[in-house]
C-alpha cells in the first residue's frame, strides 16, 4: 500500500499537488466564510432595526463564498480524477509489459515457478488456489487485471483521498475556530472527534477479514457465473439447462446471503459512527441553546457554531464508507502485485534466459539453413543424441498426452529446456539471445491465433517485410487464391479476427504457417497442422513443406497422422519411460504417463 502511495505521489507533478492542496484549503476556508455570513444575516434579522446595506454586504459575502467554494470543490475533484486516470494508465502500461508464459500444464508451470522463485511447496498457502489463479492468469487473466482491478483503484481517488484531505485540513481548522468562538463547544467537539474513528478502527479490524472474504466470494461468484455462461453449449448438448438454471439461482442466492452477512458488519459500524456524530451535534446544539438562554453566549456565535457542526463531522461520518473502499483498494493492489510478481518471474524463466554470451549468430552458422544441424541432447542421463541435419523432415509422434507439444514448446523457447539441450549448428538454443532465437525458429502452435487486425499485421506481428514477401509466403502456405479473393475487402488491409473476415480451421493453420515462414527460419516447428485436413490436402501440404525446406532447413512436425509419419526422414517417438521422465521432466510424470509405448516405423529415436 505504501509503495503504491509513493508511486502515485511520484506520478503527480508538483504543480498539481500544490493546486489540489490549495483548492482544498480554499474550499474549507469558504465554508467558514459562508457560515459566518449566514449567521450574520440571521442575526441581522433578529435585530430591531435591520440595516439594509449591512444585509446586502453579508448577502454578497455569502454568495461569493459559496460560489468560490463550489469552484474550488469542482476543481479539486477534477484534479483528483486527472491523477486517478494517470495512475491507472501507468499501472496498465506496466501490466502490458508482463507477458506470461504460454499455456502449459497448469501444475507443471506452478512447480516451475516455484523452483524459479525458490519457494518450497509448503510456502504456497493453498496449492489448489495457486493453481486456480495460474489458470486464471492464463486465459482471461490480463484483461481482468488491466480492467477490473486497475479500475478498482479509481474509487480510492474519488472517495478516500478527498476525505483524507478534508479531514486533514478541515478538522484542525474548524476545531481551532470552535475553540476560539466558544470554548465549551470546542471541547465537546474535541472529545467526540476521535471516538468515532477509534471505534471505526476497532470495527474495521473485525470487518477486514470479512471484507477480504467478501472480495473472494465476489470473484468466486463471478467465476461461477462466467463459467456457466461459457458452458451454455455444453449444457445444451447434454440437456442440463434446467439444472444449470437452478444452479445459477443457487449461486446468486448464496452470494447475496453471504454478502449481506458481511455487509451487516459494515452497516453496524456505520450505524455506530453515525449515532455518535448525530448525538454529538445534538449535544452541541443543546449546550449552545442553554448557554444562549442563560445569556453567556450571543446568538450569532452560537448559530455559527451550529452551522459549522455538521460540516465538521462530515469527514468522520464518511470514514466508514471510505474504510470499505480502502479495503477494496488494498485487495486490488495485492492482486496486482501478485500478478506482477508471477509475470516477471515467468518472463525471467522463459524469455530472458537466452541472454547468453552469443550476441549474434557467428558467421559459421548459415541463416538460410545450409548445414544447420539440430542436436537434441539428453540431459543428465547424457548418452543420447539425435542429429537432424539440414533438409531433414522430422516427425514427432507418440500417443496423445505423451508430450509432443511440450517438446516442441521447449524447442521454441516457450517452456524452459529443463535439463535438455537443443543445439543448432553447435550453438545452444537456450543460450541464444531472444531476438536471434526468434529469427531462427518458426513455431506454429496447435491453434494459431487470428488477431483482430489487418492481414498484414497478422502476418508481420511487428516485423518489417515488404508486401511482396507477404504475398509470396501466402502463396507458399496455400492461401494465394484466398488472398486474391480478398482484394475487394482491402487485400492486405482486410480485417481479420473478431468482427472481421472469419477463417476456417484449415485456413487458420495455413495463416499460422505463413506467419512462421515469413522470417525464413532455419527451423520450423509445426504442431498438428494437418489435423483438420483431408488426405489429399495433407499430401499437398507435406509436398509444399518439403519443397520449401530444400536442403538447408529443418522441419519438425508433431502429429500422429499416418501419411506424415510415412513420409518423414526421421521419426522421434515420444514415449513414456518412467526412469527418463523422472530425470528430466519431473512435473510431467503424473500427467503424461501413457500405458502404451507406441513403436513407429522408422528409427525409434531416444526418448525426449
Amino acid at each position, binding site marked *: 500500500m505504501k509503495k503504491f502511495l509513493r508511486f502515485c505521489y511520484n506520478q503527480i507533478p508538483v504543480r498539481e499537488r500544490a493546486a489540489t492542496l490549495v483548492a482544498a484549503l480554499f474550499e474549507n476556508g469558504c465554508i467558514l466564510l459562508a457560515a459566518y455570513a449566514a449567521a450574520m444575516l440571521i442575526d441581522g434579522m433578529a435585530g430591531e432595526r435591520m440595516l439594509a446595506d449591512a444585509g446586502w454586504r453579508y448577502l454578497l459575502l455569502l454568495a461569493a463564498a459559496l460560489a468560490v467554494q463550489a469552484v474550488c470543490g469542482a476543481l479539486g475533484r477534477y484534479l483528483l480524477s486527472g491523477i486517478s486516470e494517470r495512475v491507472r494508465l501507468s499501472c496498465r502500461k506496466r501490466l502490458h509489459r508482463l507477458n506470461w508464459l504460454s499455456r502449459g500444464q497448469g501444475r507443471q508451470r506452478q512447480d516451475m515457478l516455484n523452483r524459479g522463485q525458490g519457494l518450497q511447496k509448503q510456502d504456497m498457502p493453498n496449492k489448489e488456489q495457486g493453481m486456480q489463479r495460474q489458470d486464471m492468469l492464463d486465459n482471461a487473466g490480463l484483461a481482468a487485471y488491466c480492467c477490473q482491478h486497475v479500475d478498482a483503484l479509481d474509487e480510492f481517488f474519488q472517495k478516500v483521498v478527498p476525505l483524507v484531505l478534508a479531514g486533514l485540513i478541515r478538522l484542525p481548522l474548524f476545531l481551532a475556530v470552535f475553540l476560539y468562538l466558544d470554548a465549551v463547544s470546542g471541547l465537546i467537539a474535541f472529545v467526540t472527534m476521535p471516538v468515532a474513528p477509534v471505534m471505526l478502527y476497532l470495527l474495521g479490524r473485525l470487518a477486514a477479514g470479512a471484507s477480504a472474504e467478501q472480495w473472494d466470494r465476489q470473484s468466486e461468484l463471478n467465476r461461477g457465473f462466467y463459467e456457466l455462461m461459457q458452458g451454455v453449449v455444453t449444457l445444451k448438448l447434454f440437456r442440463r439447462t434446467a439444472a444449470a*438454471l437452478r444452479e445459477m439461482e443457487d449461486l446468486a442466492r448464496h452470494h447475496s446471503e453471504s454478502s449481506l452477512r458481511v455487509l451487516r458488519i459494515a452497516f453496524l459500524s456505520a450505524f455506530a459512527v453515525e449515532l455518535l456524530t448525530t448525538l454529538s451535534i445534538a449535544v452541541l446544539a443543546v449546550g449552545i441553546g442553554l448557554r444562549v438562554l442563560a445569556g453567556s453566549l450571543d446568538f450569532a456565535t452560537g448559530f455559527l457554531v451550529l452551522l459549522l457542526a455538521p460540516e465538521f463531522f462530515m469527514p468522520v461520518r464518511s470514514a466508514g464508507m471510505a474504510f470499505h473502499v480502502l479495503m477494496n483498494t488494498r485487495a486490488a493492489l495485492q492482486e496486482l502485485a501478485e500478478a506482477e510478481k508471477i509475470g516477471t518471474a515467468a518472463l525471467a524463466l522463459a524469455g530472458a534466459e537466452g541472454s547468453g554470451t552469443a550476441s549474434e549468430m557467428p558467421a559459421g552458422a548459415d541463416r538460410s539453413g545450409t548445414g544447420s544441424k539440430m542436436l537434441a541432447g539428453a540431459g543428465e542421463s547424457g548418452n543420447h543424441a539425435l542429429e537432424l541435419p539440414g533438409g531433414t523432415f522430422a516427425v514427432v509422434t507418440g500417443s496423445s498426452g505423451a508430450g509432443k507439444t511440450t517438446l516442441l514448446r521447449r524447442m521454441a523457447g516457450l517452456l524452459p529446456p529443463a535439463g535438455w539441450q537443443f543445439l543448432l549448428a553447435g550453438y545452444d538454443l537456450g543460450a541464444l539471445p531472444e531476438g536471434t532465437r526468434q529469427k531462427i525458429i518458426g513455431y506454429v502452435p496447435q491453434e494459431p*491465433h487470428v488477431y483482430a487486425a489487418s492481414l498484414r499485421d497478422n502476418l508481420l506481428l511487428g516485423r518489417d517485410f515488404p508486401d511482396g514477401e507477404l504475398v509470396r509466403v501466402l502463396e507458399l502456405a496455400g492461401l494465394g487464391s484466398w488472398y486474391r479473393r480478398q482484394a475487394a475487402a482491402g487485400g492486405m488491409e482486410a480485417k481479420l479476427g473478431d468482427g472481421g473476415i472469419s477463417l476456417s480451421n484449415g485456413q487458420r493453420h495455413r495463416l499460422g504457417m505463413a506467419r512462421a515462414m515469413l522470417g525464413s527460419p532455419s527451423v520450423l516447428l509445426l504442431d498438428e497442422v494437418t489435423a483438420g485436413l483431408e488426405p489429399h490436402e495433407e499430401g499437398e501440404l507435406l509436398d509444399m513443406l518439403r519443397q520449401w525446406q530444400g536442403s538447408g532447413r529443418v522441419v519438425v512436425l508433431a502429429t500422429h497422422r*499416418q501419411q506424415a509419419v510415412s513420409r518423414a526422414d526421421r521419426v522421434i517417438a515420444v514415449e513414456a519411460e518412467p526412469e527418463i521422465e523422472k530425470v528430466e521432466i519431473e512435473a510431467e510424470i503424473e500427467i503424461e504417463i501413457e500405458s502404451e509405448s507406441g513403436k513407429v516405423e522408422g528409427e525409434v529415436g531416444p526418448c525426449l
Partner: protein
Amino acid sequence: MLMRCMQLAAFCLSLLSSLSSIALLGLSAYLIAAASLQPELYTLALPITGVRAFGILRALLRYGERYTGHAAAFALSARVSRRLFIYLLRLLPLSHSSGENQGSLLHRLNRAAEEWRSFYLRGVTPMLVSLMLAMLAAAVLCGMGSLSPLCSWLPAWCWLAVAGTAWLGERKQLALTAEYSAYRHRLLDLQSGREELFTTGGRAWAEAQLDGAAHSLWLAGRRQGRCRSLTELAIRLMLVLPFCLLMAELWESCSLGRMSFVEAAVLAVSVQAILGEFAGLAEAVRHVLPALSGANSSQISENNSQFEKNSSQIWAESSIMNSNKVCLKADRISFSYDGVHRVPDSVSFELMAGEKAAVLGDSGSGKTTLFYLLLGLWQPDRGTLQGSLLAEGGTVSAITQNVYVFDTTIGELFRRLCPEGSEAVVWQSLELACLGDFVRSCPDGLGYRLGQDGCRLSGGQRQRLLVALAAARALSTGSRLLLLDEPTCGLDRRTGERLLAGLLAAFAGRAMLVITHDEYVAEMFKKKIHL
C-alpha cells in the same frame, strides 16, 4: 412480491431518515433562535428532547435503509442474472456473424446486469427520495404562505435544474464505454495469441498496440472527467443561487414583519439541509442513465429479434415430423451463416435405427453445422428433418468440437452432465474412451481437476473425455442416436481404432453418426455421407 415490499420499505426508510436529519438541524436552529429570545426554560424542553431523539432516530433509520436497500438490490440482481442466463440459453451457440464474438457478448451482458443493480440501489431510490423531499418542502413553504410563490417552489425548481443538468452532462459519458470495450477487446485478443507473439518477436508490437489503446482510453477518460467537472460545477452553482435568493427573501420578509426571525432561522437551516441532499443527485443520475437510455437493453432486444430464427424455446427440436419408422431422414437441408454461403448445401441422407455412418467432407463443408441442425440448436434454412430418432430430448447423445469443459473434477463433471449415470457407468465410459488407464494413474483418480476449459489435459485427452461423457449419457439414458464430432482427433491410429471399435461394440444396437477426417475411421463404417 417480497422484493417489491423490500423496495418500498427501503424507499420509506430512506425518506424518513432524510427527514429526521433535516428535522435534527431544523430543531437545533429553532432551539438556539428561540433561546436567544430568553423565554422560560420549560418551553425549550421539547426541542431539547426532540433534537436528541432525532439524532438517534436518524442513525437507526439509516441502518434500516442500508440493509433493506442492499437486500432488495441483491434480489433484483439475482433476477436480472436469471433473465440474462435464459437469454443466453436461447441465443447460444451464435449462428450469425454479428460482428461480435461470444466473449465480448458475455462481458457486455454482465455489465448490463451490474448496471441494473446499481440503477436501483444508487440511482432510482436517491432520486425519488430527493424528489419527495422537494415536493414536501414546497408544500410546507406554500402552506406557510409567508414567502413569495417563487421562493416557495424553490426546492422543486432546484431539483429539476440539478437533475436536468446532470442528465445533460451524463449523455456524453457513453463514448467512454465504447473505448473501454475496445481496449478490453484488444487485451483479450492479444492475450489469447501471446504464444506466437513470443516466438515471432511480436511482443514489442503487441505492447505498442496495447499502450495505444490504453492511451485512447485515457484521453476519453480525461474528456469525460472534464465534462463531469463542469457539470458538477454547474450543479453546485445552481444550488448556491437559490439559497442566496432565499436568504434575500427571508430578510425582506423579516424586515416587513411577515415572519419572525425564529422562523427565518429554521427555514434557512432546513432548506440548506434539503439542498444538501440534492448534491448527491448527479451521482444518482449517473447510475440511472445508462440503464434507462437502454444502450444495452435495446441491443439485447435487437439481437433477440435477429436471432429469433435460432430457436424459440430453449429446448427446441428442429421441425421434426414424427414418422412410424424409427429412423432419421434429412431431405435437402441447407444452412447459411451470412445469407450468402451455404454450408451445408442441400444435403440428403437417411439413417435407420441401429445404423452407423461416417460423415465426411472437406474442411469447412459444414459437418459440425449439420450436427447443430440435427440437435435442434439451429434451424435449417431449407429442407426438412424427420425422424423419431430426434424426437424427444433424451434420445440423442452428442459432442461437437468446441465444447467448453468445466473447471471441476472428472467425477464432478460426470455428475453434472450425466447425473443418471452411476460410478460404474462413469468407469465404463472412461474405458470405452481409452481414458481408464490415465485416470487410474492419477493420484486423485476421479478427483483430478480439469482446469479452465480442460487446460490440464492434453488435446487428445480432452477430446476423449468428451467422448466418454457422450458415452455415459448414451449408456444411462438409453439414447438411440449418437453424434460424435471428430472423436479420434489428436489420437494416434492404434488408440483411435481401439476407441471406435469399443464404441461400435458397446452401442451395437444404436444409430451413430461420426464426423471424421481420418481414413482408417471412415473405413470402419459401411455407410458414408459426403458433404
